[in-house]
């Protein structure tokens, strides 16, 4: 166990920045977001979670997949260079660390590996930051997440008086800490602070099995009435991973890109002939909740919610997944 003084942290970030691009929560126009560390900045490690999850760093809002040139009947395709940039992502909370493992299931398993995601993921070291205070909208423990220790990360950090404790979890993590050895002092593990107690609690056991019997239930009509059908929940969700593939054409050349998409939008499932299997917000909202709580557990054996509370915090009409779980369990069939 190592310790760093709070005022030395920028120096550690700077040391890491020598061999990689470092991303760390910083203030931007009053909100906390993961931004590249460029020697100075207003770190927001002490202010709860970032407004946006770090998924954009692995699965960008928009990314070019390949370019092409067309000349009459001839066309050629140019692949984008592979992504070699090394990165260190600092200040990831336990909920978001779990979300990376869930995205790994989606993008790296079941027969196909998504190369764009894999390259970014393999080139990124993750430094987690334990939560000692929680927001009212937090409920990570409902999904078995420990706010005091993240899964699948390279380094674990804990905020303590005057600084941070650090523990290298993987070989790569210990190597990172080695880069800052002059800034770090030995410390005792007994100083690890108690983990935060999330603001919300919800019991998730049995909800998947209940939902399996509720597809046609009128509950979905009732719960979807206030939904605006916007995509805020899906775009702020650390585990939502839907994307669209489209092209941008200029004269004889262009490129194909993929960008985030949302199952809350009408266009998402609408087919070329006009038929839409999910014609209204009832079907779309139902799909979103079933995906988190039934379909993903059926396919990957895990809930696709990490209890970060971003959807609940930013939903304009207070659609609340913890309330949905509770109500679903109370529905009589």
């Amino acid at each position: 166990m190592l310790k760093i003084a709070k005022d030395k942290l920028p120096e550690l970030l700077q040391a890491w920045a020598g061999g990689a691009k470092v991303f760390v929560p910083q203030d931007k126009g009053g909100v906390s977001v993961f931004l590249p560390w460029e020697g100075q900045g207003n770190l927001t490690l002490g202010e709860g979670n970032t407004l946006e999850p770090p998924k954009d760093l692995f699965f960008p809002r928009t990314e070019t997949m390949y370019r092409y040139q067309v000349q009459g009947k001839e066309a050629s395709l140019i692949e984008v260079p592979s992504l070699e940039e090394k990165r260190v992502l600092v200040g990831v909370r336990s909920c978001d660390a779990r979300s990376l493992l869930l995205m790994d299931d989606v993008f790296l398993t079941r027969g196909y590996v998504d190369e764009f995601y894999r390259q970014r993921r393999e080139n990124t070291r993750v430094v987690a930051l334990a939560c000692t205070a929680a927001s009212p909208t937090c409920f990570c423990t409902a999904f078995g997440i420990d706010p005091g220790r993240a899964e699948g990360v390279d380094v674990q950090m804990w905020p303590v008086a005057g600084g941070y404790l650090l523990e290298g979890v993987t070989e790569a993590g210990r190597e990172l800490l080695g880069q800052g050895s002059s800034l770090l002092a030995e410390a005792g593990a007994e100083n690890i602070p108690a983990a935060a107690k999330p603001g919300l609690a919800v019991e998730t056991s049995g909800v998947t099995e209940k939902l399996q019997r509720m597809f046609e239930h009128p509950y979905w009509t009732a719960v979807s009435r206030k939904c605006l059908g916007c995509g805020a929940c899906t775009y702020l969700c650390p585990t939502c991973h839907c994307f669209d593939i489209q092209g941008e054409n200029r004269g004889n050349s262009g490129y194909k890109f993929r960008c985030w998409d949302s199952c809350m939008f009408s266009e998402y499932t609408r087919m070329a002939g006009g038929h839409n299997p999910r014609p209204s917000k009832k079907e779309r909202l139902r799909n979103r909740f079933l995906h988190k709580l039934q379909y993903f557990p059926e396919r990957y054996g895990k809930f696709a919610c990490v209890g970060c509370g971003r959807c609940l915090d930013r939903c304009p009409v207070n659609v609340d997944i913890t309330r949905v779980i509770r109500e679903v369990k109370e529905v009589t069939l």
Partner: protein
Amino acid sequence: MANEARVNPLVPRTGRIIKIVDETPDVKTFHITTDSGKPFTPLPGQLAMLSLLDVGEAMFSITSQGPEHLELAIKRVGMLTDALHEAEEGQTVGIRGPYGNGFPVEELKGKDLLFIGGGIGLAPVRSLINYCIEHRQDYGHLWIIYGARSPADLCFKDDLFNNWPKVENCRVDVTVDRGDAGWQGHEGFVPAFVEELHPDPAGKVAITCGPPIMIKFVLQSMEKLGYKDDQIITTLEMRMKCGIGKCGRCNLGSCYVCLDGPVFTLAQLKQLPNEY
């Protein structure tokens, strides 16, 4: 670099349209190959993602294949298919695949097969019919019941009226919703035609594909004729983008149609949400 050895499943290869066959006023079959031969060797019922690089990309069923090419029968319904219908032989295309599970050709061995198709819905079924003809000794009696809106809308006329009727132990029945002056055959909708022909369910598996409304009534007819849910196979169409079970949109419950489908038995479909 290690990455160069990896294939990016979302990036197509370039291929070429080497032949275009007019099937009906709004369906054409495109023969596609690449500089190194057939783009890939699909199982019957599998899918291909086809693109015109400057227009768009969409998933199509592969209707047949030769030693050096794939055949995709495509109906004109939107922007990409409009552009494909305007394309000429020699046009470069992007192609990736094969995707999906395909028909369960092993499990179907030894069975009598009943194919029920409507309109462009014969496209995926044709890949299986041709496969069964190639492996004729592995399958029992083949019975093809097919219909379209009008005689002009019948796809694969050469197969329907010349090739398939000549195959040993194979029967072909064709109907049209409305005939024209030259039409000598049956008139009427496919589901009613199926009931009229009353194929006995014993030892049979039925494979059906067509417009959703036809499928709905065909399934009712099959039930009347005594077919069990696991004796009926259909293939679904959904909006797809990635083809590899990542982008999310073609899900039916926890299944992705692009990966776990598009071929399902009716018994399997009844276990899935009715969202197709």
